[in-house]
Each structure stands twice: as C-alpha cells, then as structure tokens.
C-alpha cells in the first residue's frame, strides 16, 4: 500500500496548436480526497481523462495503482478502468437504457461477468436507494431532471465499489440545496468505501467542505496545492484571488478580452 493511487509526472498534452497541459506533476495517496480547481479551459477535465487512459498524453508518465497506463492498448486498460469510477461532466448516461440498467451496466460488464443476476439487482437497488432514486428504476434517462441525472451518474460511478472515483463537476448547474445534498452523499460514500477521490468543481466553497486538499491549475500546470480548509487564506496570491473572486490581483482570468472588460467597467 505504499505506492500512491495516482502518480502523474511531467505530463504534456496539446490538441493541435492549443496547449492544454504543460508539464503537470501530481501525486495522490490512497484514501485521500483531492479537489481540482482552476479557470475555465485550464485542462481539469483533460487531466481526469488522462488518468483513465481515455486520452493519451503527448509526453510524460501516468501511473494508476502502480500500473503505467501511457501507451497501453485499449483492451489492456479494461481491468484497470473497472477499478475506477467516473462521473462525467455532462452525465454521459446511456440514453438507450433505463436508470436501473445504467447503474447495472458496470456490474454486468465488469469483473469478468461473474456476478449473478440476483446479486446485480440487489446491489443496484441498494445504490439507487442510497442516492434517493428508488422508484425511478424504469425511467429512461431523458425523463430525468439535471439533479436526478447527476445522482444516476454518481450511482453508476460508485456501484462497483471503485477504488478511485473521479467526479467532474458534481454540482454544476444545480441549486445550492441540491449541491449540498450531492456533496453529503459523496462524503458518506467515501467514508463507507475508503476510496481515493479526485473531484473537479467551480464551486470552491462546497468543494472545500468535501475534500482534504485542493490543487490549483493555472497556465497549464499545478501552481498551488494545499489543505482545503484554509484555501481562502492560501499563501499564493493567485489562488486567494480566484477563490475569493476579487477583481484586483495577478490573475489574468480570460486573457486580453477580460482586461478590456475590466477597463470598461471602470
């Protein structure tokens, strides 16, 4: 249990001429919860996809549970991916399956298909009860509200008791009350399974109440990492400004356009 859950070293990634990640290094110990914050398009989601091997980096090394994933073939990544649960930013629920079938999917496909139908049904029902969706089993995902879709996504990400869970914007587009409910649910889950968690969110206050540590992504790399509880008083001026939402500061949030907006406001 000595090796970390995730070890990212010197990872570079670009799409065409657009740089996304520029020499990122990040370690995450097992059983800990790390929050990832940063301005829009700073490469947070791409980082999550790199960890699962959904995208390949241009350069650098990524190890998950001590296993190198760079350059691996799609077929060989399967067993590792089954140990990871992922909540996608836009849910990515299967629109041709019902709620129940969506949640059952990782169990049916995973673990070499050794689970019996009864076990799967039991675990799916338990998970749906836990996220408060009992009674919606037979609905198609198109009939659900945003908050319900998130919860189905969470149920699907956690149903196989993944050792590493990645949440990409678990609270985006939700009202404050639902947001709090979602985070309570995530905390309860993590306490139960002891899984390693990597969470992205723009809602820093809610995120800080959930994770142990927060890393700040800026200008294609990690510029700060520190305890979540004191993030608003971080020694790094960039982070302080981003978290507090100050207008004055070193942060050039959206390039030159934003600067001229600032001027016109003044």
């Amino acid at each position, binding site marked *: 249990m000595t090796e970390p859950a995730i070890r990212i070293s010197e990872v570079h990634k670009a799409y065409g001429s657009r740089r996304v990640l520029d020499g990122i290094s990040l370690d995450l110990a097992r059983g800990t919860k790390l929050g990832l914050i940063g301005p829009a398009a700073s490469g947070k989601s791409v980082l999550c996809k790199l960890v699962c091997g959904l995208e390949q980096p241009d350069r650098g090394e990524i190890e998950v549970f001590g296993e190198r994933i760079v350059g691996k073939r799609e077929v060989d990544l399967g067993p590792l991916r089954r140990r990871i*649960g992922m909540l996608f930013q836009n849910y990515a629920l299967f629109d041709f399956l019902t709620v129940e079938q969506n949640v059952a999917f990782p169990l049916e496909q995973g673990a070499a*298909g050794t689970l*019996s139908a009864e076990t799967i049904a039991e675990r799916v029902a338990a998970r749906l009860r836990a996220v408060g969706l009992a009674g919606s089993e037979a609905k198609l995902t198109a009939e659900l509200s945003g908050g319900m879709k998130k919860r189905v996504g969470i149920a*699907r990400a956690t149903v196989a008791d993944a050792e590493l869970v990645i949440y990409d914007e678990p609270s985006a587009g939700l009202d404050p009350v639902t947001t709090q409910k979602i985070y309570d649910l995530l905390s309860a889950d993590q306490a139960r399974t002891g899984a390693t968690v990597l969470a992205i969110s723009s809602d820093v206050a809610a995120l800080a109440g959930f994770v142990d540590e927060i890393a700040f992504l800026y200008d294609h790399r990690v510029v700060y990492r520190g305890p979540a509880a004191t993030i608003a008083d971080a020694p790094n001026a960039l982070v302080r400004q981003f978290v507090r939402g100050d207008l004055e500061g070193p942060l050039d949030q959206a390039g030159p356009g934003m600067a001229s907006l600032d001027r016109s406001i003044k």
Partner: protein
Amino acid sequence: MSNRIEALGSAALSLVRAGVELWRVYVSTIAGVMRGFSRRKDRRGHGGRARQSRAQSELVRQLHAIGNKSIVFIVITLGALGMVMTYQACLQLGRVTGDYSQVGSQLLRLIISDFGPTLTAMMLATRVGAGIAAEIGSMKVTEQIDALRMSGVLPIDYLIVPRFIACLVMMLMLAVLGSAVMYAAGGLTAKYSFGVNPNTFFDLSFIRPRHLVLFVVKCLAYGAAIPIVAGFCGLRARGSSEGVGWATTAAVIGSSFAVIVLDFILSASALWLTGGDL
C-alpha cells in the same frame, strides 16, 4: 502556390490517415465478431449470463431496427424503380423493334446480377448508414462512448459488431425482397402499359447459378461496408450537435460511394472471370 500545395498535401495526408483508421475499425470489428463467437463457447452454463443476454437482445434490436423498419422504405423505392425501368426499357424497345418478349427475362437477369442488390444497398446506405452514424455520433459527443470504455467495454465490440452482423443478415433478406418487388412491379407495368403477357414476362429460364453467386457476393460486400463506414464516421464525430450532423452526412456519402465502387469492382471482376459470358 506553396500554400496550395501544402493544403493539397495535408488533405491527402488526412485522407490516408482516415483510410488507415477505417481499416483498423474493420479489422477490430472482425476480431470482435470472432471474440463474440469464442466467448459464447466458453461461457456456456456459468457466469456472464447477464452480459450475454444483453448482447443477444442488442443483436435482436439491431436486426429489427435495420431490417424490419426498412421494409416499407425498400418496397416503395424499389417498387417505383422497377416500374420506371421496365417502362423506359419497353418505351425504347417499342421505338426500335416492338418486340417485348425478352424484356422480362433480361430485366430479371439485370435485377439479380446488379440492380436488386445495388439499389437496395444504396437505399440502405441512406437509411441505415445515416441512422448508425447519428446514433453512434451522438453517443460520442455526449461522452457515452467514454462511459462505455470506463466499464472496460470496447466500443467497437459493443456498438459496431451487432450492427455489422445485423446489416450482413438483413442486407441479404432485403435484397431478396427488393429484387422480388422490383420484378413484380416491372411485370405489372409491362402488362398494363404495354400489354405484355405475364407468362412471357416472368420467364426464369435465363437465370444461371453464376448470377445467384454474384447476387450473394454483392449483398455480403455491401452489408459489410455500410455499417463499417457509418460506424467509423460516427466514432469520429467531434464537438456537439454540429459534429453529429457532419458525421451523419459523411456516413451517407461514404457508404453510398462505397456501394458504387464495390459494385464496379465486383461487376468488372465477374465480367472478367466469366469472359463476358454472364
């Protein structure tokens, strides 16, 4: 000028890259079909039942979506074509000789060795090709493909293999149906517009085994090409709704063109192999 050459070069390069990728999709699909067969053998009786029954119900769903739902479409379009072709042929023959006795048997020869399978495939490329690309393309842009991969599922095995098998089977069935409808529609036209005796028209004596072989070979080639090209276009979709639109368009064009080119290759080889005695 150098800009032009550069643009041409990069276009050629991307075409080559697309070709290589298309080939990889094809190989992976065949490998997926093989895996599906071997998996069925060793999974019998224990474990994996849920997955296997899901795979079977998916295949049935695709057979229905590709086959049954195309029946009306095929009957209407090929029926109209059969009537028109007979009409035009009789019209021209009437101008020259006025002898209609060969129309039916020659039409049947043409339908079986070419028009039946090819026009059915053109129609399927439109309906099924666009459908496959739209479905897989929207799954791609909504990250459902990534969600599949997260469960350790190969998107090609899960999405393209059932469509591939269904399309192979249904192409053959629908081509038989389409050819029959075309021939029957032609017979009706000949009878009611030109007074050709149905007994003379429905003359099967010109059909030889080699025509039937060509029919089956063409069906298999088209049935394999359409889902591969369309699935490939769907998997390449990028962005959001616009990307899905592009993928669907590319699939219609790509699979229709594949049908035309395959038809040319197969017809020319058949003519060459038989020394013109087809």
